[in-house]
């Protein structure tokens, strides 16, 4: 599903954050990436998403070399094959919950009715007409998870998805995420500082100056 080959990345300041990172993610696999602050976890997700490019190495998504894609092609790939969950939720404040979740369907020209089904799946059935301001943090993250999976992406990238939530809510959200990943057959890479969060993944990896290795 996803193959990282000898990735290297430095910031413009010259500081190297990723050094010879390699990994092969199988279809349907859910891995958690842990590591110290500033080690390059979010940068790794940005590279996988095609939002940034590595200094060296290759990223292969579904057999496609990301380096071969221009901005438009990378955008199309993200639109069709990837879903995203962020620490800060990033739910559009002026759209209803249904509209927020339906965004990827709209972008892909898919049937919008699945948005309601996804809201139902994350426990927000019947609240599609509500606005984000009416939700708690945990509820907003559930909307984000529904949005990440609604278009049946092959790969979900989650950046500290429980970073803004209390432990109980975080645990619940992670279970929702895992269940939905499984029921949709999606692979996922989750960056987290939380051991409890990492424990919900199929496999935990540690990112360090020397590369990516199993915990």
């Amino acid at each position, binding site marked *: 599903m996803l193959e990282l080959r000898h990735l290297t990345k430095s910031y413009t300041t010259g500081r190297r954050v990723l050094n010879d990172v390699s990994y092969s993610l199988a279809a349907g696999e859910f891995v958690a990436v842990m590591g110290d602050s500033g080690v390059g976890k*979010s940068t790794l997700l*940005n590279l996988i*998403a095609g*939002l*940034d490019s590595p200094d060296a190495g290759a990223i292969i998504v579904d057999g496609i070399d990301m380096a071969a894609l221009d*901005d*438009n092609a990378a*955008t*199309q790939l*993200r*639109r*069709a094959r990837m879903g*995203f969950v*962020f620490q*800060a*939720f*990033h*739910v*559009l*404040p*002026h*759209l209803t919950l249904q*509209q927020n979740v339906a*965004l*990827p*369907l*709209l*972008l*892909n*020209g*898919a*049937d*919008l*009715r699945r948005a309601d089904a996804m809201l139902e799946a994350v426990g927000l059935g019947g609240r599609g007409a509500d606005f984000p301001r009416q939700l708690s*943090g945990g509820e*907003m993250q559930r909307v984000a998870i529904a949005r990440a999976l609604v278009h049946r992406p092959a790969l979900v990238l989650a950046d500290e998805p429980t970073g*803004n939530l209390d432990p109980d809510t975080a645990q619940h959200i992670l279970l929702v995420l895992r269940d939905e990943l499984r029921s949709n057959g999606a692979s996922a890479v989750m960056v987290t500082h939380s051991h409890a969060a990492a424990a919900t993944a199929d496999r935990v990896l540690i990112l360090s100056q020397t590369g990516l290795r199993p915990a």
Partner: protein
Amino acid sequence: MRLSRLGSLRQLSCWLLLGEWRAYPLRALTAVAAIALGVALGFAIDLINTAAYNEFSAAARSLSGQADLEVRGTQPTFDERYYPMLATRAGVAQASPMLVLDAAVSGQTSPLKIIGVDVMRAAALTPDLVGVPVADRPFDTLADDAVFLSPAAMAWFKTRVGGRIKLRVGTNSVSLRVAGGLVRARAGQRIGVMDIGAAQWRFQRIGQLSRVVLKLTEGVNLMAFKSALARATQGQLQVLQSADETSRSASLSRAYRVNLNVLALVALFTGAFLVFSTQALSVIRRRSQFALLRVMGVTRAQLLRQVVLEGGMVGAVGAALGIVGGYALAATALHFFGGDLGGGYFPGVQPALQFAPLRAGVFFTLGLAVALLGSAAPAWEAARAPAAQALKSGSEEGALAQLANPWPALVLLLTGALLTLAPPLDDLPIFGYLAVALLLIGGIALMPRLAGAVFRWLQHLPTTHAITTLVLSRLANAPGQAAIALGGVLASFSLMVAMAIMVASFRVSVDDWLSHVLPADVYIRSAASGNTAALSPAEQAMIARTPGIARVDFMRLTQLNLDPARPAVALIARPIEVSTAANALPMVQTVAVPAHSLPIWVSEAMVDLYGFSPGKQVRLPLAGQWRDVVVAGVWRDYARQFGAIQMRLADYRSLTGDTAINDAGLWLQPGTTPAQAIARLKVLSFGAALEYAEPGEIRTVSLKIFDRSFVVTYLLEAVAMVIGLFGIAATFSAQILARAKEFGMLRHIGVTRRQVLGILAAEGGLLTLMGMAVGFVLGWVISLILVFVVNPQSFHWRMQLHVPWGLLTAVAALLLLAAVLTALIAGRSALSGSVVRAVREDW
């Protein structure tokens, strides 16, 4: 519910657009209203001016009727001996002579145009000018006491068929019988038609014609005939075709119309800036939302289109409303005030308003274009922002980093400065206007760099006050956002300063000029208007002999047609000594002239329009002959935009034999008051027919006319100011509402509500002060362009610079107060929400 890819994107676009408008309806409405107001003003002014101009031109053209050519003299009338030559010339099918006079009417400030025609010939060539007699007097068209009045003239005289009207001839009156009407006269057109022989006799113009209109034989080459005829008359007659008449009519008011249109567009410019600031702040606020869309698969092009679409929708809705509003405004203005917007170029014209789809399209496009332009930079920023960075909060100032690049601004400023050196284009100061626009945009574009530098310097001032530190830190470290707020202040204030300085300079210059050109104690005039009233030598002698009068300067005012495509030039003959000309005229340049030459003194417009530069020998058509004269000096004239020539009365009389005069300036003997002198003059046999005025009265009336002609200017400027203020309000409130999280955090760490409001008031005040300081400099520079480039190129007069400090200080104080109040009101609104929620919101 599966939609096509295109349909899906349209729906997404609608969601985003409506979501934004639903969340901030007032902001969207303000932007729409700004564009609507700008378009409405521009369209209304254009409609009114176009309607008035069309009506005015049509009325002028109606005098030529079906003719191919019109022959005029170089003076108001020419010898009728030319007529047989014209009528019998090979190629002429029909010729119709005319005598056109502006007959003075006692007690009225405007004349009645009297047109004398040969009714037999006019019936074929100018049928609109044939009167309709009553049924039982069919030959009244040839009667020597009959006049046929247009409906507007009848209404003006409050008379009807069978009544009588009195018109001035010399210092006497002639009574004419209203024999019928002119059924095809235009609305508002005040004319009277009579038999040409009767007109020549009644108005003492025996043997004189004003024009002859010609219909050529079919197949005759018009241009060749025109050139040959002009050559044959050796320049004594001017041969015009309808295009010349159109050009002549157009030049009368063109500079005024263009200037007013440009001024009306200023409101649209400030509206464009409002759209820019609204869109820019909206994009900054939604930077991470757009980044999310990019992450989720929205391409750069789609995002660019989305933001441009938002601006475009504002522009389209605003422009459509503006077109409707502009039409309604024009209809209302025409109904209540007529076609003259105060400039005095279209007196008495009653134009009918017509919807012009093409012009409406132009103004709609302008409204749409400024909104799209206002959105272009924010849209570009939204599309090019790196999504991964933009997703993080606190990246807003990065969005404005491009604004801090000073080079584009400096290039604009330099280009603007260079354009001020360019000459007029087609007699219009096009490059002057462009220079003003470039300086304004360049000045605004320079603000981020300037704001950063000034506030960074202020930040280094020693202070231990937390709130002051907070205020200065934010202004210094977020100069891009500060600059957007500053831009609104700058645009409004600089335009206001520029216009205020220009108008004040003009007014003070006119006031000084009036003092110079009105040195006598009392002025008399044969009539308030028209060219049929005059004083004979005997009457002049009686005035000069009147007790209490020490000196009389008689003046003869007439006109010269030097260029068929331009309005006539005024010729003023009066007593002037070469050595002391500067005492009589407000000279701007003098040269020594040869002893035996005939000196003339020309207004600045003559230099610009005809190249009559000082020292140059030129030829003037006087009494049927070309006379060599030398330009002895250039004087300033604010009364005649199309040029005026002054010459010695003795020279004029010896060259033309014309001994009549129109005006006189009287110097009184010590002990004689103006009232006593006027009373003595009024008892003369012709005294009651004259108009009397003291310099003070003339000055008061002149300045009243000046102020009236600028009423529309003030109005347009006020609207631009109001839009500017709305822009400032929208900018401040958008910025403050976007900072709710920051204020929530401050409240958490112990800053009181009052202190937060203090921060906002201080920020608003400081930004406004800086905007006004730079705005004053920019406005002053723009005023220099208006005073020394735009005005001379438009109206051919120059003026001295005068800064109205009192007015500027009052407006500055008002603007400062409005800005601080806006900041406080928006601040109260931002602080009204939950402090806890403010810090938890993720956008």
